C-alpha cells in the first residue's frame, strides 16, 4: 500500500459526497435564488424607481454571500462532522490517504461546487432581476472576494467539525455562526450602520459586512478604500486558520 496522492478520482468522490446531500443543494443553490427573488419583490414598493436597480444590485451582492455560507459553513461542517462521527476519515487515513490530501480534495470539490452554485445564482438573477451591469474590475473584485471568503469558511467549518467530531454540536455552532453572520452583516434586512455600537464593532471584523454594505457602491465605478475590508478578511482568515491548526493538532495520529 502506498501513500495516496491528491487525484481527480478523489475530487470526484468528494463531489459525489456533496451532491448526495440534499440540504446543501437546497440551502446552497436554491435558497439564495429564492431569497433574492423574494427581497426584490419586497423592496419594489419601498424604493423610488430611480434607485430600484441599485437596490436590486445590492440584494444580488448580499444574497450571493449565502452561497458560500450555506454550502461551506453549514453544508461542509455538517457533512464532515457526520463523517468524523463514523470515523470515515480515519478509515480513509488507514487506507493511505493523508489528512492533508483529503483536505485539499474536499476543498477543490467544494470550490467546484460553489462555482456551479455562483453561476446558477448569477444566471437566474440576471434573467429574473434588473441587475446593473458592473465595471469589470468591480465584478472581478466580487469574484475574488467570494472565493477568498469560501476558502476561509471552508477552513473554519473544517476546524469546527474536527474539534467537536460530532454532528450535533458542530451543526449547532455552525448554525449559530451562520445566523450570527447574517444578522451582523446586513443579510437580514438590518444594515451594519443600524446595529448597536458593540455589534457594529464586531460586524466590522467580518468581511461579509463590507461586501454586503459597500460593494454595490462601486459596482459601476467609483473609489473605495479597501483597507478595512482587507484587514477584516485577514483577521477572519487568521482566526479560521488558528481553529483549523488547533483541531488538527488535537487529533493527530502518532507513531512513536
Amino acid at each position: 500500500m502506498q501513500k495516496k496522492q491528491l487525484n481527480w478520482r478523489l475530487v470526484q468522490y468528494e463531489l459525489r459526497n456533496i451532491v448526495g446531500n440534499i440540504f446543501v443543494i437546497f440551502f446552497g443553490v436554491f435558497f439564495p435564488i429564492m431569497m433574492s427573488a423574494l427581497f426584490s419583490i419586497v423592496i419594489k414598493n419601498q424604493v423610488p424607481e430611480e434607485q430600484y436597480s441599485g437596490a436590486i444590485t445590492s440584494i444580488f451582492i448580499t444574497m450571493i454571500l449565502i452561497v458560500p455560507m450555506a454550502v461551506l459553513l453549514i453544508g461542509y461542517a455538517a457533512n464532515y462532522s457526520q463523517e468524523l462521527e463514523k470515523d470515515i476519515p480515519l478509515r480513509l487515513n488507514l487506507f493511505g490517504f493523508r489528512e492533508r490530501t483529503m483536505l485539499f480534495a474536499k476543498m477543490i470539490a467544494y470550490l467546484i461546487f460553489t462555482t456551479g452554485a455562483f453561476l446558477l445564482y448569477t444566471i437566474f438573477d440576471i434573467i429574473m432581476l434588473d441587475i446593473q451591469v458592473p465595471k469589470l474590475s468591480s465584478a472581478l473584485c466580487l469574484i475574488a472576494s467570494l472565493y477568498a471568503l469560501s476558502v476561509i469558511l471552508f477552513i473554519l467549518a473544517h476546524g469546527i467539525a474536527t474539534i467537536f467530531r460530532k454532528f450535533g454540536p458542530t451543526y449547532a455552532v455552525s448554525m449559530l455562526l451562520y445566523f450570527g453572520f447574517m444578522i451582523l452583516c446586513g443579510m437580514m434586512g438590518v444594515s451594519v450602520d443600524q446595529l448597536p455600537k458593540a455589534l457594529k464593532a464586531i460586524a466590522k471584523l467580518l468581511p461579509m459586512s463590507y461586501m454586503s454594505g459597500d460593494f454595490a457602491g462601486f459596482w459601476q465605478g467609483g473609489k473605495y478604500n479597501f483597507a478595512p475590508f482587507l484587514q477584516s478578511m485577514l483577521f477572519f482568515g487568521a482566526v479560521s486558520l488558528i481553529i483549523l491548526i488547533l483541531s488538527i493538532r488535537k487529533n493527530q495520529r502518532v507513531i512513536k
Partner: protein
Amino acid sequence: MIRINNVQVKYGNQLALSINEPIIMEDGDRIGIIGSNGAGKSTLVKTILGLTNYQGSIVTDLKPEEIAVHMQHNHYANTMAVKHIMETILNTSIKKNKMLQELITFFDFEECLKKKYSSLSGGQKQRLTIILVLIQDSPFVFFDEVTSGLDFETRQRLMTKLGEWYLDKNTTLCVVSHYYEELEQLVNKILILEAGQVVDFGNKDELFRNYCGKTVITIENNEKNKELTKSLLKLKAPAHLIALSCQNSDLEKEITGLLIKEDINFKRSNNDIEIMSINAKAHFHENKAGGKNHAEKTA
C-alpha cells in the same frame, strides 16, 4: 517487524493496556489475539497503528501505510454507490483492474457494487473492507473481529477464503477474534490478553502443551462423568464440559478406551484454543494472587 516494549495505554484513570514483557511480531507470523470484552485487544491494535496516546515504545521498520487494517467498525460514505468508494480508495477502475475483479468475484461481491453502503448486509459490509484490505497486499495486516455479527455459515466461508488468500503469502497477520475455531484454522501464534494485561504470548502448539498437555479430551459435564473421571487430571473448562488432560499417548489411549467402554461421547483435540486460554488465564490469576500473598507475607 514490530517490537512492543513496556507499553501502557490509559483511558482517563483506567489502565486499558499494560505490556511489560517485550512482544515481537515477526515476518510471516499468523497471530491470534484473544481475550474477553475489555481485555485490550482493540486497544492493542489501535496502539500499534498509533491511534492512542501510549507510554513505552513500539519499534517497527514498517511505515504506517504498510500496515493494512480491517477495524472492528468500518464505515463509508452513504452518498454514493460502493463502486465509486472502491475505485477512489484504490485509485483504479474496476473495469481495468484484473486483480480487483478477481477479488470481487472471489468474495461474490459483484451484485453489491451499485448499492450504497447503508444498503449492504452485515456480511457484505465486512467483505467490502476485506477486499479493500487484501488488494493492498501489505506486509502486515490486522483483522479486528472481522466476522463479528455474522452467521455461522458466512463466518466459515469468510475465514476459509481468507485462509486461501494468504496460503502462499509471507504476510504477517494479526487476527482479533472471539471465535476460537476460526483462529485454529488460521494462526500459529496466540496472544492472550486479560483486563489489559498479557497472560501469555507464543507459539500456539507450545502454549497448548504448557497449559493442557499433549491432548485434551472433553466430555459432557454430568454426575456420571464426574464420578467416572474423578481420579483423572482435569483442566478448567466451560461449565458444560469436563476437560481431561492427556500428558502422553498411553494416558490418552487409557482414557479414550475407558470412555468408549462406557459409551460416552468425547472430543479429542491437540489445539483447543478455548480450553488453553481458560487455563492460561487461571494460571495467570493464580500467579498474581500468589505474588500478592507473597508480598503481603514479606511485608
